């Protein structure tokens, strides 16, 4: 009977009911639509990053600065930031390897250089990878041409997208074995390396930003980034450093650049000299133990279905005292992934604000409805209805309305999504396309998002009802007579 009473009251007060339906429905539809897109972007990012470059956990040096595989996650810091190497890599690697949940453990060193291929020069991020394990950690990386790098081999792999871009520009096919020239110029000096192209890859879950990556051997990245050189190079000779101890004017005194001083015609930088230096440094690189050198990261792919959080917590406990820490894929993916989190938080904050405004309006409508029904409620009280009965009646009506509004809101949101998907909106911006997991917007229906949005509607109905319900409960039976 009480349900019947609720339903008939809803129908009888249909003007109020419609306004509440509309308000809660719109908020629910917005929440569903927005969170579906954000959930899609989460999935897209996860597919792009977790399956392609970050795996599940990344061990990095604990510097107090949030770091991704590409550098510092704070843009201003990143300008002056050099990725630190892992201390006690071997010990930490063994700890990671001993995790029963770990499927693959691999190491990586990150750098950047200018790549010269067929005369096209492009800045590239370099991932120096442990080729023996890296590609089994990322089965999403597919070989299109050539082969994967071999352990200890010096060579590089570029993405199919880059190869196509260069081919289009130069109208020449990029072939396996093509020499790739990598150069860096930094405070540690000018570095140049020539490596053969051993393979061209693509991703199972493509992402424009990741197409820029170049996979190479770790010793090349270390050399280009001066990781080992910086720590192992001997101090400069005394005569060189002595120059710095004198007066600054002495550097530009009589002995420097005077017009009458004869200059040696062959004293300048020659191509032969460069090549001989290249060979010398290359020999020096090869003499290094490629596996035992410095690394920036250890990447861990967990077995399928293993929850990441508990493993991360337990691993970080084991890593205490090593000066390193394990981070999740989102931190390791960098700003793009963190941006989604920020956008999601901002969006939901917006929804909360809209919800609060909507709730204020609903509270107002419900209060007016309660005042209009004072005689009816007073009559029920006079007949002996308990507080619980009145509470159930008024709250029940509002929850039925909110539930219906939630369902209709999700339905409207789903129709909106279907329309959006049918429009096949193309995203030219690489960040946006990475965020949404593809260049064409295609947001799938998520039951959990739908249920979450319906819960938002019910929550809204519940919270908006609290005050009006208590107002209804406080109505005394005597008003049934007074308003009679």
């Amino acid at each position, binding site marked *: 009977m009480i349900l019947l009473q609720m339903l008939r009251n809803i129908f009888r007060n249909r003007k109020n009911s419609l306004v509440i339906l509309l308000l809660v429905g719109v908020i629910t539809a917005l929440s569903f639509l927005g969170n579906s897109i954000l959930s899609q972007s989460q999935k897209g990012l996860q597919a792009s990053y977790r399956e392609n470059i970050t795996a599940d956990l990344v061990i990095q040096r604990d510097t107090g600065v949030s770091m991704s595989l590409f550098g510092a996650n704070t843009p201003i810091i990143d300008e002056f930031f050099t990725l630190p190497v892992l201390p006690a890599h071997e010990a930490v690697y063994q700890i990671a390897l001993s995790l029963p949940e770990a499927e693959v453990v691999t190491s990586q060193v990150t750098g950047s250089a200018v790549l010269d291929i067929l005369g096209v020069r492009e800045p590239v991020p370099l991932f120096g990878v442990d080729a023996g394990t890296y590609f089994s950690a990322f089965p999403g990386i597919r070989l299109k041409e050539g082969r994967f790098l071999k352990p200890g081999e010096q060579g590089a792999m570029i993405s199919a997208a880059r190869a196509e871009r260069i081919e289009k520009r130069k109208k020449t096919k990029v072939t396996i074995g093509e020499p790739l020239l990598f150069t860096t110029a930094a405070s540690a000096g000018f570095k140049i390396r020539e490596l053969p192209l051993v393979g061209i890859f693509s991703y199972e879950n493509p992402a424009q930003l990741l197409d820029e990556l170049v996979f190479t051997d770790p010793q090349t990245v270390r050399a280009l980034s001066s990781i080992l050189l910086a720590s192992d190079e001997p101090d400069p000779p005394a005569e060189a450093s002595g120059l710095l101890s004198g007066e600054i004017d002495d550097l530009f005194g009589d002995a420097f650049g005077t017009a009458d001083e004869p200059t040696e015609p062959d004293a300048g930088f020659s191509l032969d000299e460069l090549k001989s230096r290249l060979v010398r440094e290359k020999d020096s690189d090869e003499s290094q133990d490629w596996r035992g050198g410095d690394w920036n990261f250890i990447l861990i792919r967990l077995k399928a279905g293993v929850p990441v959080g508990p493993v991360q917590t337990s691993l970080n406990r084991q890593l205490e005292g090593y000066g390193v820490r394990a981070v999740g894929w989102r931190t390791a993916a960098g700003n793009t992934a963190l941006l989604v989190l920020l956008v999601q938080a901002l969006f939901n904050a917006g929804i909360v604000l809209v919800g609060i405004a909507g709730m204020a309006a609903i509270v107002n409508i419900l209060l007016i409805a309660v005042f209009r029904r004072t*005689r009816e409620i007073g009559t029920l009280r006079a*007949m002996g*209805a308990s507080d619980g009965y009145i509470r159930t009646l008024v709250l029940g009506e509002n929850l039925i309305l909110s539930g219906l509004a939630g369902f209709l809101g999700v339905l409207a949101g789903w129709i909106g999504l279907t329309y959006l998907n049918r429009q096949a909106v193309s995203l030219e911006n690489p960040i946006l396309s990475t965020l949404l997991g593809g260049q064409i917007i295609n947001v799938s229906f998520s039951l959990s998002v739908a249920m979450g949005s319906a819960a938002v509607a019910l929550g809204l109905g519940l919270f908006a009802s609290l005050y009006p319900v208590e107002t209804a409960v406080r109505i005394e039976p005597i008003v*049934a007579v007074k308003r009679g």
Partner: protein
Amino acid sequence: MPIVSLRNLWKTYPLGKTEVHALKGVSLDINAGDFVSIAGPSGSGKTTMMNTMGLIDTPTQGEVQLLDRIVSGMGRRELARTRHDHIGFIFQSFNLLPVLNVFENVELPMLIGRCRLPRQERREWVTHLLEQVGLTDRKDHRPAELSGGQQQRAAIARALATRPRIVIADEPTANLDSKTGERVLELMKRINQEEGTTFIFSTHDPVIWEMADHVVFLHDGQISSETRR
């Protein structure tokens, strides 16, 4: 043994800086099975006294005893329970719930209390009550589809639904024409005689109060006279 007993009942309402005394030391005993009329002009305190006896208002001073129990110490919940179990109300404006039909309105009091009858028994009782008040053919109608007299008859059936010992009716004929009013009172009288239910109703209509066997005249918040027949 009185079923309702009022002792030195005062009810005072604040009115700005002054006070209005609606009841001034009223004492009254009503016996079980009485058909009582509280008569008096408007503003004499009839409604206040009815509300106090019906436990929907509390006296400023004095004591109300109902079914041998002093009600002044009762909390909200116990008052509601007592009202539900022992008192039926008939309102001047009928106060039927507009969203329920006649049958459902009569059934409702049986559904809002603690002890509920089995469905079949409940429906049989409602059908019996509707037969008693002559509304069997109107049981599926909503209140808005009924005449004033029919609505008041439905309200009488509703007041009797929980088999109360006392039915309190505040000016039950005020919104009815005189002929219909008399019929409603005749119905109440018949139920009083057949079921033994105590009826207490207020009126300022001499034709109506003449039908009561116990008439209490109120004037200016005090009992001016009391007649038992």
